[in-house]
């Protein structure tokens, strides 16, 4: 995830570039929002404004779509996003214990970002890698067959 802050004119420029590369129809909205999330780290108000101008859509429409999907975000994140799968297969495989160990290690509840802006913690629905549950996804890296005592060493690998 990008962590640097963007100035307003940079946001406008980046969003314009993204929209030009994808298109301006209604069907292009979600791919645009995905790319904005990937490149800016989240979909800021300025970004929504600019998309609204380019796609000729009301900002409330864009916000409504942007807040619907789990992988789109309208809020800034910490440097690393930790996602824990809370679906049944991981739960049965010892996920409950891993979740409490994870909460303890991060000192965060799901949905929170740490004060030093290092971690944002979410619980998520099934990630489709149930064969190796319990599963933790940190940014784009998958950690499978996790046990509670592995948590500190897994987290320790991230700066």
């Amino acid at each position, binding site marked *: 995830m990008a962590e640097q802050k963007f100035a307003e004119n940079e946001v406008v420029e980046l969003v314009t570039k993204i929209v030009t590369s994808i298109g301006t129809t209604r069907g292009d909205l979600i791919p645009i929002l995905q790319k904005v999330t990937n490149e800016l780290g989240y979909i800021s108000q300025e970004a929504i404004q600019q998309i609204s101008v380019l796609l000729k859509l009301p900002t409330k429409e864009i916000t409504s*779509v942007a807040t619907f999907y789990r*992988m789109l975000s309208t809020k800034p994140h910490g440097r690393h996003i930790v996602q824990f799968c809370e679906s049944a*297969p991981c739960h*049965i495989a010892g996920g409950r214990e891993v979740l409490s160990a994870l909460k303890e290690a991060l000192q965060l509840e799901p949905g929170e970002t740490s004060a030093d802006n290092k971690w944002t913690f979410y619980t998520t629905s099934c990630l489709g890698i149930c064969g190796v549950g319990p599963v933790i996804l940190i940014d784009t890296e998958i950690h499978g067959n996790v046990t509670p005592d592995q948590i500190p060493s897994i987290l320790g690998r991230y700066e």
Partner: protein
Amino acid sequence: MKTVRSMVLVSSDPESQKRGSTEIYAAFEQLLSQYGLSEEVQLTYATDIGNSTAVPLVMIYPEAVIYGPLLVSEVPHIVEEHLYKGRIVDEKLAPRYALSGRIAWLQARKGTLPAENRVVLKNVGLIDPESIDDYIAQDGYQALGLALTQTPEEVIKTISDSGLQGRGGAGFPTGLKWSFVRKAAGAKKYVICNADESEPGTFKDRVLLEGDPHRTIESMLIAAYAVGADEGYIYIRGEYQLALQRLEAAIKQAEEYGFLGKNIFGSGLNFHLHVHAGAGAYVCGEETALIESLEGKRGEPRSRPPYPTNEGLWGKPTLINNVETLANIPPIIIHGAEWYRKMGTPSSPGTKVYTILGNVNDKGLIEVPMGITLREIITIYAKGMKDGNFKMAQTGGSGGSIIPSSLQDTPMDFESFKKAGVALGSGALLICNENVCIVDLAKVLINFFRVESCGKCTPCRIGTKRALDILTNISNGQGKMEDLDELENLSHDLIALSNCGLGQTAGTPLKEMLNYFRAEVEAHIKLGICPSGTCQMYN
């Protein structure tokens, strides 16, 4: 090529080698020449035989007989009896329970064991998913060529005759769906592949797309020809990055080879295929929500009718099929409906891909004929329970059913399960032992639906929240007997009043919890005990 009468295959995986397969091979070689059989009998090593505890194995074709575990000292007897006199040595046959995977299927052809049969997953793991040439070498795009020599009606008839049913969970007859789209009025039609696989515990479509992306493209082309569509989308869940990359690469290759684009194979068929990555919403696996999402909106299911077959993407007739359903199309076109009907059960022909998870020894992906039982899956493929005894299985992700042990021997096909009042779902099998608490499991399942509910209709939005609150109370030891009535009502309302499948299936775990495990729930309430020791009781 010289013709041989028999073929002898000696397993040569590391375990077999350790147990002397090299010596066995040498013994065969020496004895065959001694009996003057070297010309008629071909001797080879077999590498990929699947797992077996009975190695070293020796397979002899054409009888497809499997011997094992075999000792060097026993080779002369086998050669003399089987290869020289033509009599099968019964006492050295490998025990059925010791065989799995492809080798088990080999034996099953003799009508003994319901074994793995890879139709859908045939190429997965065997071909380079990034090479179109590899796919073509495995008869890839042949089904398309064959379909193009037939009329669209003939193609649809073959699919209808095959009895193929949708593998996404609902089991709708595929041929019928195709004919609806074919008959729908309008010049512009779409074909969509639903690859938004998000049912907890299900990852069969991911494996298919990662391992054999061209299969999906070919199937969509056949579908497009049959229903008269010229544009298609693969809606793949956003988390499946590898599958997404492989699909994009595969589409590019297919375009270069002229399999996608204009006037394909000179038949006049035009087809353009796009990939759309989901943005993280379980509900988008529901077909009308998926369409909304493709149109750039919130993934909220539409009211039906009109059905997508008449009014789908951008209001045009649209065919939506699951990845696994589509993967069945090319083999059906090539081998015919009758061949397909030989697998599975009369009411549900074909195979089904399952993901096996939970408290079992061997987790993973299998493809078996429809109609296999849960007990067979657990004992044969999952190699038994890891610890404890079987208590229940949850089928088909959260959208499936909770299967109690009393239904362990029910054939797993759409009709038998429907009769038993449960659902086959999308193919995940979460096997639970008695350490799993039903209240705790129901809580996790309901919480999933609460999180993933799109919030459009009230029964689902409020019902899942309310059910979770009640279950949480019960698991904390603060439940009341009246709660059970309320759960029953909630389950009924969710099933009867929700707008789409998400809310409707959210009611199922509640219903089944009360149907099959009521005593365990009551123990939480009346006695303040969690029989499996999972829930923390506070009173």
